[in-house]
């Protein structure tokens, strides 16, 4: 392991100064997120952008970079949140241990769902992921002694986070934001690492031409399973962040509507772009915020805007912006 990939993400550096600057994508993304609470109308919105940004970023690995349209990503988002809450609330595990435990368990869930779903292709893959994720939803609904069922999981609150002798009041929104941002930074570093790695090249080859990738000597099924697990792991970290943030886990986050929202966010922001998921999450949440003030039927408007995007801006907000600036083309 060497330094974070920001310093070495020169895989395909473009010649322009802007292109070179964008090679520092992890550092740049962290810088933007660091000032986000002051750019957005509310602190709460900024925290949500952070959380959903991480979830959608993990999903982007699967959908944007590997070309696998899953409708079940909510399962890993939810699993991360539930496992964190259960570990802290029921077993008294300290938060810094609960998060990696939750990510590991969620990755195991991703392995189980991935083994079944990655054997199928196209629409069948989408449907199998949807069905298995709904199965997870119903398990969480039924196992109410563990999960709180319909009421959601309650009874765990992290009010102070302390690590290495440093103790921070987690109830303070600014502190909370920056602690959660550290998780997001970790996720971004990991994702950038994967994209720059040899394996990152394999998943892109699979997206571009599965048959050719196999003829080149890649075990396509195994690669898909690995990327499914990595994607689930990153999205589950977003779930851990949600649990720490809310101190409850609403059952709804496991529902397929959440999976649909994740798909919409990645398309709004721009699949196959590194920072697109955060832009997409912000766009979606701002739309929801603004429009739901005017009308309870906000989903109608968000849906219409989404359709316009798919028709006219298939690369999403961020992808189109990068293309316009002429720096988005050759980047992994």
């Amino acid at each position, binding site marked *: 392991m060497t330094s974070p990939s920001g310093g070495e993400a020169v895989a395909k550096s473009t010649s322009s100064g802007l292109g070179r600057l964008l090679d520092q994508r992890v550092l740049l993304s962290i810088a933007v997120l660091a000032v986000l609470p002051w750019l957005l109308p509310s602190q709460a919105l900024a925290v949500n952008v952070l959380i959903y940004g991480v979830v959608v970023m993990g999903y982007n690995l699967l959908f944007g970079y590997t070309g696998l349209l899953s409708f079940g990503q909510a399962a890993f988002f939810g699993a991360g949140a539930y496992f964190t809450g259960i570990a802290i609330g029921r077993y008294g595990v300290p938060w810094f241990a609960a998060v990696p435990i939750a990510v590991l368990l969620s990755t195991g869930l991703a392995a189980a769902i991935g083994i079944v779903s990655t054997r199928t292709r196209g629409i069948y893959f989408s449907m199998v992921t949807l069905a298995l994720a709904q199965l997870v939803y119903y398990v969480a609904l039924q196992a109410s002694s563990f999960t709180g069922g319909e009421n959601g999981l309650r009874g765990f609150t992290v009010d102070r986070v302390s690590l290495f002798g440093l103790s921070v009041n987690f109830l303070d929104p600014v502190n909370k934001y920056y602690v959660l941002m550290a998780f997001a930074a970790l996720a971004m570093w990991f994702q950038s690492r994967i994209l720059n790695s040899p394996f990152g090249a394999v998943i892109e080859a699979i997206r571009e031409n599965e048959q050719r990738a196999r003829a080149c*000597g890649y075990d396509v099924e195994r690669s898909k399973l690995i990327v499914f697990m990595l994607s689930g792991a990153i999205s589950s970290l977003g779930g851990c962040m949600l649990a720490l943030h809310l101190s409850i886990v609403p059952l709804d986050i496991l529902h397929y509507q959440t999976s649909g929202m994740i798909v919409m966010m990645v398309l709004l922001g721009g699949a196959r772009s590194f920072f697109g998921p955060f832009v997409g999450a912000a766009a979606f949440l701002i739309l929801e915020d603004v429009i739901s003030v005017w009308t309870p039927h906000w989903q109608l408007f968000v849906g219409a805007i989404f359709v316009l995007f798919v028709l006219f801006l298939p690369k999403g907000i961020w992808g189109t912006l990068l293309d316009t600036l002429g720096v988005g083309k050759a980047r992994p």
Partner: protein
Amino acid sequence: MSGELLRAEGIGKHFGGFVALEGITVSFAAGQLTSIIGPNGAGKSTFFNILSGALTPTSGKLHFRGRELNGLPQHRFVHQGISRSYQITNIFPDLSVHENVRVAAQALTVSYDIWRNRARLTELNARADVALDAVGLLGRRAELAKFLSHGQQRALEIAIALVSEPELLLLDEPTAGMGPEETKDMVALLERLAEKRTVLLVEHKMKMVLGLSKRVVVLHHGRLLADGAPDEIRSNPEVRRVYLGQSEGYG
């Protein structure tokens, strides 16, 4: 190089009730260019798909360098030293020309590594450039593959197959859809390739095949019809009847 490289023993392939191949027994020596010809539907592509692992034969055995290949998954064939190109252009359209070849080279060494930086695998970059140079595409290495001309995409396809340094190179109609100029370039490339390695070629253009190959294998209705040097094939009455007779200068 000499000696037997690949041997097919009684290869047959049925699709339901349809017999695509039946009882093909043939062996290929190392270090020469052999062409497989036959009218449409003769089973050439099926045979090629079996040789490259994309299809499993219904009956018969495949031996490569003395090792039996039956039951090996397709992606392992490259690792054994058998690499192929496709009749219909089959590349990674949205990747750069260089990355198309680099990712193919990478398959033989690192697949699942998520920690190293791929840009630092300089040996792979160099190998990709050598393969691109061999097919005359080094000057376009930074472009997206989808923006290449048809002939260049065919050449890229061969570079992808070539970069794994295969002992046996299977080329499925490399001149399909090419004009005369592009075909000439491709023939020159094939001649260069055949100097150093064993090449199996499926082709439709008879003049080109007879001029290029040391040996020609003729398939007809899924069976082996003839096997010999170009001159023998040209004078074989059976072959003339089913194939050449249709038009001497086909293609």
